């Protein structure tokens, strides 16, 4: 193998060699540059290969034939080799990307680029303090040159600001260094680390100055205005280098420097890092320039890595896995995004909508965002998991909280941006496509997925990219060019096949949920046969959600559970975003969901207390004082998904604005994931008390209020899908209530809700969706009298609302029956009253579905409406049959569950499933006889009506009205708008959007705070230098004052 010194020699030699070439030989010069960068990459790569795969030990490289500390030495190990490879590769890509610019600027620019890459490698390799300084100055100066390659004239100012700040930095560094040398008698980093005690006898200040100098290069808050200006104005390829290469190299330099300081300085690094991470993310919320936004995000990510460096001792062996995962994810994603930004013509975030015409570029964008946010299966996900666990196990809860808060902010603005890409108006000629630039950007995508695989292999948790459901979902990406019908068939086959293969291994609870989610999903997907085109992007998203669901049900460990949870969250977000007007709603969905997921992460981390491979079942053994907190965190996380009141505001928009076949998927199926989580939680942890408050009691209240508020809000909706969405909040409230009762029948009722709600909500969403598709509106008052035109949809709706309202003979009644039995065994009176109140309210809104849509008078413009398309009606009919069957023999499914649940309650209060009747201690219920009785009554009444009206004359719709006078607007004769106005007068105060106002105010506050505070970055280079000085002095006062 070639000595790593050749990386330096090749870089420098090629730079010098370029001077020998005549000015005109641009091609030759460019060739030399590429060759040198490739060679540097090859050397680094060969070392990486040796360390990673052949297990070579790190090597020390001496110069001048003399041992350190008397001469400069390099050290190359796994970390150094991988970082050097990163430097060389980003450098090579930058050279390819900037080809035109380099040709225009000539060989000098190429030489500067080569030296830049060489110097970053030097920063990584060297173990000598002064040598580190020299390489860092080289990076600074070459940055000063490369900034000027930008076509943006403002880059000149940015470069000057950078130079001013770096002058200050080098003064601090040199003064600190020479005093550190005086204290220890060496300039070698390891030597200084060994002489730590000497250093801190009188040299703590010296170390402090050096640390400040290196940290200043990491752009800590508030001393980072200059960095932002460079990100905004530099050539995108250089901005990519500046973010990925300079960032990574300087982070590594800080890591080395902290070796000298030792453990006592680590908290300082963490503190500076976390402040930078959170503040930069807050500031990024109000950015509308893409590159400046990426700059803020870069600063934030580096802050996060600094935080991790500060937790080095806690992380132990995991340190490089965590820090490296975040660092590489950041580097690749940022480089990729900056490269993409070079393809987009204008600088507004909304201008990125131009990408939409190129699915491959959209995929690249998604990959980078997922990589940055740390979604599975990317390295950041594994890293975040390990980090959270280490922090929680060591009581660093504040830090964990701040990290998760910052990460949520980052996810918020990145996903908002993604929403713009898919939903904003596509600008004309918005892309500056150039094959080579595109290839460079796409190569980052490849690297991203390779890293995902690698980190999966390295993690002790099992590689997510080996999970078959996820692979199946990803399979739809390359297949996306196929017609939708084909893909739909494949998807259905996949869902059913997976269920068929796996159901024998499920217990009763898993079986119910799996049946609802997988074959249940397949039935809903039948409706998707309706679409004609290719439907790009639908199937990867949908299958990602299903993959998450399938993995969730089978998850044994907390890691598997959480990974599945994030997958299904992200998949469903993409699905919801597909709706025409769903941009803001999808955003609020993903923010709430990720917020909930982060709470779960904190909960799991707190529960595990450092135990690797924590089993879900082990939740039962979590002891005080953590247990109630774990319970609360997980419960809130799950309740976010079930849209309990307080965190429900995302649901109505997300469910209502989704596409016709997506609404039933996210409502009928996805909500059950939250219930599944709650089931698992209650089954393992049971009742918990926090400060003397019974937490299940709190959940009971939340469930009751959700039921009331959800139903109440539903009655005032004009939009049919929104009505159904609010009704889901109410329904989930019931289920939550049942679970929180913590008795056998309550749980049974909740399970019954899982099945019922899936069937009728899917059915109703499909039939309403079909109607909306035909009529072109979702406002109910614009419909009416559709019963004759859309009879099948009418039947589905009728059956659906009978089932929902819980009147005999359908299964909803069964649910109610069990529910009332359950309530009688519980003792909470007040929430019980509330939940009883919610019942009749449900009638009010359900009545509107039939009355306003199907009964009454037909509108003129709807006279030609046809029945909903076959593929939308088909699943509804299947659901009708299923409802009837389930109503007749509920025991088929429920008796197994009943038996399964019995042990949790010592076999008490079970039901007796003998024969066709079900008996509880309060009475019995015989579905078949009820069905028969109702059937007989209905048939008799119907026959009697027919008999009485046998001579009735069919009347045209307007005959009666026209008898008196001719109405000016016939539709006004069908009273439907603001139907429940009197109720609104009476109960309207309950529907005040207090929760919405709360969350909106919070968001508003964050945004305006960011908008005011970011004005500290005045743009004046001198002010930035003062910021830096102030940073140093403030840290000095805070830290050294207290040291």
């Amino acid at each position, binding site marked *: 193998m070639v*000595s790593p*010194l*050749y990386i*330096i*020699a090749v870089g*420098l*030699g090629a*730079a*010098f*060699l*370029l*001077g*020998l070439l005549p000015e005109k030989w641009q091609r030759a010069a460019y060739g030399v540059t590429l060759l040198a960068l490739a060679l540097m990459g090859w050397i680094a790569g060969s070392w990486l290969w040796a360390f990673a795969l052949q297990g070579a030990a790190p090597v020390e*490289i*001496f*110069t*001048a*034939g*003399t041992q350190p*500390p*008397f*001469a*400069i030495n390099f050290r190359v190990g796994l970390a150094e080799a991988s970082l050097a490879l990163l430097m060389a590769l980003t450098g090579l890509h930058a050279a390819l990307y900037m080809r035109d610019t380099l040709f225009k*600027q*000539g060989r*000098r*620019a190429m*030489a*500067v680029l080569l*030296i830049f890459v060489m*110097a970053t490698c*030097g920063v990584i390799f*060297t173990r*000598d303090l*002064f*040598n580190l300084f*020299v*390489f860092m*100055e*080289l990076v600074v*100066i070459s940055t*000063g*040159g490369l900034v*000027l390659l930008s076509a943006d004239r403002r880059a000149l100012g940015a470069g000057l600001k950078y130079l001013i700040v770096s002058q200050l930095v080098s003064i601090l560094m040199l*003064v600190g260094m020479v*005093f550190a040398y*005086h204290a220890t*008698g*060496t300039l070698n980093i390891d030597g200084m680390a060994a002489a730590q005690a000497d250093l801190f006898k*009188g040299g703590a*200040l*010296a170390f*402090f100055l050096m640390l400040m100098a290196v940290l200043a290069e990491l752009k800590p808050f508030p001393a980072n205005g200059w960095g932002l200006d460079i990100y905004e104005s530099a050539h995108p390829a250089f901005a990519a280098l500046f973010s990925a290469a300079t960032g990574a190299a300087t982070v590594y330099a800080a890591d080395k420097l902290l070796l000298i300081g030792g453990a006592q300085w680590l908290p300082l690094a963490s503190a500076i890092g976390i402040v930078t991470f959170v503040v930069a993310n807050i500031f990024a919320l109000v950015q509308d320039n893409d590159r400046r936004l990426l700059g803020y995000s870069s600063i934030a990510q580096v802050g996060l890595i600094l935080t991790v460096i500060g937790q080095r001792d806690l992380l132990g062996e995991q340190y490089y896995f965590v820090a490296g995962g975040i660092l590489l994810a950041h580097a690749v994603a940022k480089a990729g995004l900056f490269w993409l930004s070079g393809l987009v013509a204008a600088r507004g975030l909304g201008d990125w909508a131009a990408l939409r015409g190129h699915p491959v570029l959209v995929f690249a964008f998604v990959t980078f965002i997922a990589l940055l946010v740390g979604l599975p299966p990317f390295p950041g996900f594994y890293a975040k998991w390990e980090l959270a666990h280490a922090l929680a196990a060591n009581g660093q809860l504040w830090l964990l909280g701040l990290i998760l808060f910052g990460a949520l902010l980052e996810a918020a603005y990145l996903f908002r941006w993604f929403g713009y890409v898919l939903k904003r108006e596509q600008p004309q000629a918005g892309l500056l496509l150039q094959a080579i630039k595109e290839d460079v950007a796409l190569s980052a995508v490849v690297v991203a997925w390779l890293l995902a695989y690698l980190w999966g292999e390295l993690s002790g948790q099992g590689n997510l990219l080996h999970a078959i459901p996820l692979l199946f979902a990803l399979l739809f990406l390359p297949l996306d060019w196929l017609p939708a019908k084909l893909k739909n068939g494949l998807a259905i086959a996949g869902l059913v096949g997976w269920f068929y293969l796996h159901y024998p291994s499920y217990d009763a609870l898993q079986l119910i949920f799996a049946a609802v989610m997988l074959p249940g999903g397949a039935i809903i997907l039948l409706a998707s046969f309706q679409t004609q085109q290719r439907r790009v992007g639908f199937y990867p998203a949908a299958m990602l959600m299903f993959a998450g669901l399938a993995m969730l049900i089978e998850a044994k460990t907390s890691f598997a559970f959480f990974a599945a949870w994030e997958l299904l969250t992200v998949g469903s977000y993409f699905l919801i975003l597909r709706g025409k007007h769903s941009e803001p709603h999808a955003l609020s969905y993903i923010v709430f969901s990720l917020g909930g997921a982060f709470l779960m992460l904190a909960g799991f981390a707190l529960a595990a207390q450092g135990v690797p491979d924590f089993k879900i079942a082990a939740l039962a053994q979590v002891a005080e004082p953590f247990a109630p907190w774990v319970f609360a965190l997980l419960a809130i996380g799950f309740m976010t998904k079930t849209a309990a009141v307080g965190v429900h505001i995302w649901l109505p928009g997300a469910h209502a604005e989704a596409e016709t076949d997506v609404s039933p998927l996210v409502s009928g199926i996805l909500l059950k994931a939250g219930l599944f989580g709650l089931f698992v939680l209650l089954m393992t942890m049971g009742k918990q008390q926090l400060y003397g408050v019974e937490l299940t009691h709190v959940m009971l209240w939340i469930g009751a209020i959700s039921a009331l508020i959800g139903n109440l809000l539903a009655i005032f909706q004009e939009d049919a899908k929104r009505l159904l969405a609010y009704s889901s909040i109410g329904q989930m409230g019931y289920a939550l209530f049942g679970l929180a009762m913590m008795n056998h029948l309550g749980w049974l009722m909740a399970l019954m809700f899982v099945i019922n709600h899936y069937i009728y909500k899917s059915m109703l969403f499909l039939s309403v969706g079909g109607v909306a598709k035909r009529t072109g509106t979702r406002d109910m008052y614009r419909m009416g009298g559709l019963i004759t035109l859309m009879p099948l949809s009418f039947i589905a709706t009728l059956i659906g609302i009978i089932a929902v309202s819980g009147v005999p003979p359908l299964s909803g009644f069964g649910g109610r029956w069990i529910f009332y039995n359950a309530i009688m065994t519980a003792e909470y009176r007040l929430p019980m009253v509330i939940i009883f109140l919610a019942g009749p309210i449900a009638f009010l809104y359900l009545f509107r579905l039939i009355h306003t849509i199907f009964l009454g008078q037909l509108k003129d413009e709807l006279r030609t409406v046809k029945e909903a398309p076959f593929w939308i009606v088909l699943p509804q009919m299947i659901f009708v049959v299923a409802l009837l069957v389930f109503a007749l023999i509920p025991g088929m499914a429920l008796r197994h569950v009943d038996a399964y649940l019995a042990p949790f309650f010592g076999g008490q209060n079970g039901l007796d499933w003998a024969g066709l009747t079900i008996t509880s201690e309060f009475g019995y219920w015989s579905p078949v006889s009820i069905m028969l009785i109702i059937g007989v009554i209905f048939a008799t009444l119907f026959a009697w009506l027919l008999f009485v009206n046998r001579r009735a004359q069919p009347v045209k719709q307007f005959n009666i009205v026209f008898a008196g006078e001719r109405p000016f607007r016939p539709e006004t004769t069908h009273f439907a708008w603001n139907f429940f106005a009197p109720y609104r007068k009476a109960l309207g105060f309950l529907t005040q959007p207090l929760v919405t106002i709360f969350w909106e105010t919070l968001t508003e506050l964050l945004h305006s705070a960011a908008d005011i505070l970011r004005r500290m970055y005045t743009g004046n280079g001198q002010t930035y230098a*003062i910021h830096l*000085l*102030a940073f*140093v*002095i403030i840290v*000095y*006062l805070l830290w050294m004052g207290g040291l």
Partner: protein
Amino acid sequence: MIRRFAVFLLLLGLGAIFADLLLGYTPSEELNLTARYYAEHTAQDLGAANIVTAIVVTYRGLDTLGEVTVLFLTATIIGMVLARGRKHRALQRQLPAAGELLTTGSRLLVPLILLLGVYVFVNGHLTPGGGFQGGAIVASAALLLLLTDPLKRFSHRLIAVMEAVSGLFFIGLGVLGLVYAGGFLDSRVLPNGAFGTLFSAGVMPIIYSFIGLKVGAEFTSMLTHLAETEQS
């Protein structure tokens, strides 16, 4: 005013840090580990009389390579920036002619200055001085010429070749050390020779000469580029 006051306060803080450093400073009575090694071993191991030179060229040769690169980089960037978009306009104002004293003086001094510069970098391993000092002296000859005639032009090509060739030789000698001696930039590629003579200390004087040439070339290049801005 507020700015001045804030800066004053902050510098007061920095001053406190410096004062702390100063008060905590006790001059060493003996050479520390590193310095002692240099004092004891330089002469035997490397054969250089000037210990600072031995450190600069060999022990910390990598720093020096970086240092030379800094100059190269600066000269390159200046060339890149100033060459870009330069419009060749006629000089706006008439330059006053250089005085007789300056013209004659420079004619007399330039060869002497060049000679001194070469002497300084060739003897860098023996006497105070070396490549950087010598190079700076060489470049001051160019400065003198430019002062005499601001419109004088040096050949960019020649300067470029000189900086490239001397840089490449520097790296080449370093790599020779890696191959034939103890490591990158080890000066013992050639025998140490007789202590205190011109041909001693291995390749140290050769490297320092190339450094001198390179530094001279870089400085001249920067001066020329900056001088050429006079034109526009």
